[in-house]
């Protein structure tokens, strides 16, 4: 019997590997609409959608892009994603984007926004300054104003007037998408043998280029197909992978991790699609609702200040929620936010008695055997001793 997910996964793989963004171009031709890119980690895609445009997640060039020009823009000690993104830009692969958003997550992405302003003068370039103060009257008011400014720029670009009703409709679609993604993650954690992580990852990556309605349908189709699989669970170690919220690991690395005897039961890849944890309310003022959702109910990640809870509480919650037996820190080399966060998380895990292992990668790493060996040993030690 052919594997029921093959067709869907293949569709996602084609989208993932297509660095010419054909799907985006086709969407533009089909609808006559415009497209706006955004960098990791999180961007309020609802606004782009409500302005009648396609939000496009840009996560660098991955393992298949040869860097010819990008290296001339960055010193060797800067992570890889900005150079591959510049490569995509200066080689014309991102010409299909009419604008680009740069969320405030680190100094590299921040400065990349300025580089984009200098290199692509005819495009909309916007830095999204997220508040690090989380009360409604202060950080909320500031963020609402940021959103309002962004919406005006997007509206001007698409020439679509965004009414509150229109925005509410977009929010509802993204709420639905987040719900189905939450289900995807829950299903993987419950039956990892039916939802291999590299497949889940490809399905998630498809959210970067597909219209939200199509992506929601795709996840549902995938879940239905995966449920039909008749597979027995293996005696793998259940792990949470963390640290890769921006520059993504190559697919082969994800596969190596799984092949080494790990079931990944939670991760922080393509985090923007899961950044908001609950539904955004469909209230009278949708901008305030989006701001409130940002202030309150989100994941904890290195680029976000967390004044309320102890560092690592979110990770430990995830370990408990998904029944993980260990944590794999897997972060891009030279990524200050992830690598400075790591010792704090390590301390929290040590206190909680959760085993862990760490390694760094680059999006274009082609040597996986070291990682595989390391996570394999880690998985074995969990299975044998219950601790690394």
């Amino acid at each position, binding site marked *: 019997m052919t594997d029921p997910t093959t067709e869907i996964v293949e569709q996602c793989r084609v989208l993932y590997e297509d660095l010419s963004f054909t799907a985006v171009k086709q969407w533009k031709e089909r609808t006559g609409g415009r497209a706006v890119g955004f960098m990791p980690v999180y961007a309020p895609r609802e606004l782009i959608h409500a302005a009648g445009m396609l939000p496009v997640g840009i996560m660098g060039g991955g393992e298949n892009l040869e860097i010819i020009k990008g290296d001339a823009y960055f*010193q060797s000690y800067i992570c890889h994603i900005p150079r591959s993104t510049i490569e995509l830009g200066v080689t014309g692969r991102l010409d299909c984007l009419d604008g680009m958003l740069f969320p405030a997550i680190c100094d590299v992405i921040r*400065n990349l926004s300025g580089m984009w302003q200098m290199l692509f003068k005819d495009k909309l370039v916007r830095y999204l300054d997220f508040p*690090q103060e989380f009360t409604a009257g202060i950080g909320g008011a500031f963020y609402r104003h940021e959103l309002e400014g962004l919406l005006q720029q997007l509206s001007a670009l698409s020439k679509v007037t965004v009414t509150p009703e229109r925005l509410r409709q977009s929010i509802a679609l993204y709420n639905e998408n987040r719900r189905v993604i939450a289900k995807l993650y829950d299903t993987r954690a419950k039956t990892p043998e039916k939802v291999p992580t590299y497949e889940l990852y490809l399905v998630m990556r498809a959210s970067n280029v597909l219209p939200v309605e199509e992506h929601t349908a795709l996840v549902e189709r995938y879940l239905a197909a995966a449920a039909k699989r008749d597979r027995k669970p293996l005696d793998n170690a259940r792990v949470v992978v963390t640290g890769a919220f921006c520059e993504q690991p190559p697919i082969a690395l994800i596969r190596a991790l799984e092949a080494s005897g790990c079931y990944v039961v939670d991760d922080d890849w393509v985090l923007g699609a899961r950044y908001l944890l609950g539904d955004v309310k469909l209230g009278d003022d949708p901008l305030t609702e989006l701001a409130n959702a940002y202030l309150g109910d989100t994941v904890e990640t290195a680029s976000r200040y967390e004044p309320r809870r102890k560092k690592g509480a979110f990770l430990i919650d995830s370990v408990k929620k998904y029944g993980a037996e260990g944590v794999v820190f897997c972060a891009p080399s030279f990524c200050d936010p992830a*690598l400075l966060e790591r010792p704090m998380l390590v301390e929290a895990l040590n206190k909680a008695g959760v085993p862990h292992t760490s390694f760094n990668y680059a999006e274009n790493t082609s040597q996986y055997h070291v990682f595989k060996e390391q996570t394999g040993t880690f998985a074995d030690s969990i299975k044998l001793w219950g601790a690394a």
Partner: protein
Amino acid sequence: MLLQKKMIAGHFDRLANTAKTGEKAVYTFVPGNLNELIWAFDLLPVHPEINALQSAMRKQSGDYVLEAEKAGHSEDVCTYVKSDIGMMRKGNIGPTGQRLPEPSLLLLSYTGCFTFMKWFELLKQEYNCPVVMLHVPYQADGRITPEMRKYVVKQLKEVVIPKLEEISGKKYDEDKLRAMLASSARSEDDLVAVWDAAKQKPSPIDAYFGGVYYIGPIFTAFRGTKECESYYRTLRAEVEQRAKQGLGPVTPDGKVHQEKYRLVVEGPPNWTSFREFWEMFYAEGAVCVSSTYTRVGGLYEQGFRHDPEHPLESLADYCMGCYTNRNLPSRVDLIAKQIEDFQADGFVVNSIKSCNSFSAGQLLMMKEIEKRTGRAGGFIESDLVDPRYFSAANIKNRLESYFQMLEARS
């Protein structure tokens, strides 16, 4: 210089004696610091970047960095953070050999650098003390909007000041703050005059290597104090006197620096081999007539002054106006303008491995500045406080070729 040494020694004495005096220390970062506000509550400011750079100048940072790496910190991240953590783990002995007090508060002025946030999150875990965050929006479009100002002022009023009141046990005294801001503005006037002096040929100052001494008091614990005012008055008089006499800057070995090339420098200096690094410039007759590092704590030449009439608004503008809080096009504009204003022959980028805030994008900036000004840029790489990343031979070679190129062009 002596005056500055005395000020620093006095401050560290006070910090060392807090156990006896009951005074409390507030750790905070240099760019966009709220020094006057901290003093207005009679709290003692401590700047961990300054401790790190002082450790480097005393050749201790290498050990501190290794200590932090042994404790699990990555080789890839900012070495200021690692030097600070290593110093703390080795007993928190400050630059004057005295023990630093633990912070009663970490005032996280989140200006111009994301690493600051991680740094104080790490310290919070170590000291288990309160943190207050002041989130300073970035000048992404090259300007400060009224909403940005409002956001910072609100945080000051509703978050930062109440926390300082709680820690110090004192009420916010706006008149006291105003008096300090007026004093800051007077020092700022004098500092601008010092920078301006470098427009003369030959320049009486080196505005990068010498410049780091000139910014010491005003960017750190002393802005707003009487000693600071008197330091800048004296400095200005000295520099103006040298200018009148047509003298060049003084080098560390006491000789006068002969001016052959006038340069603008982008990026922080290396601290572990500071003198050796400086010598590579003055030995070739290169004088730095302006620099961007000396603007991390404010761009006063563009007219900003702390303003006693609008105390919190001006603190907000100060925080947002720091060099690294400006977008890349604004940084290019600034360097191009410095090259013109100071009649520089070229510019050098010292790209710092630790510092993404400065370094990411510098190569494009360089191209753009060359295009705009027609002056050649030189490019070198080093680190702030990690001696492993200062390759003297390499840097010297690069600089020599760069100077040869300038020579050929002139």
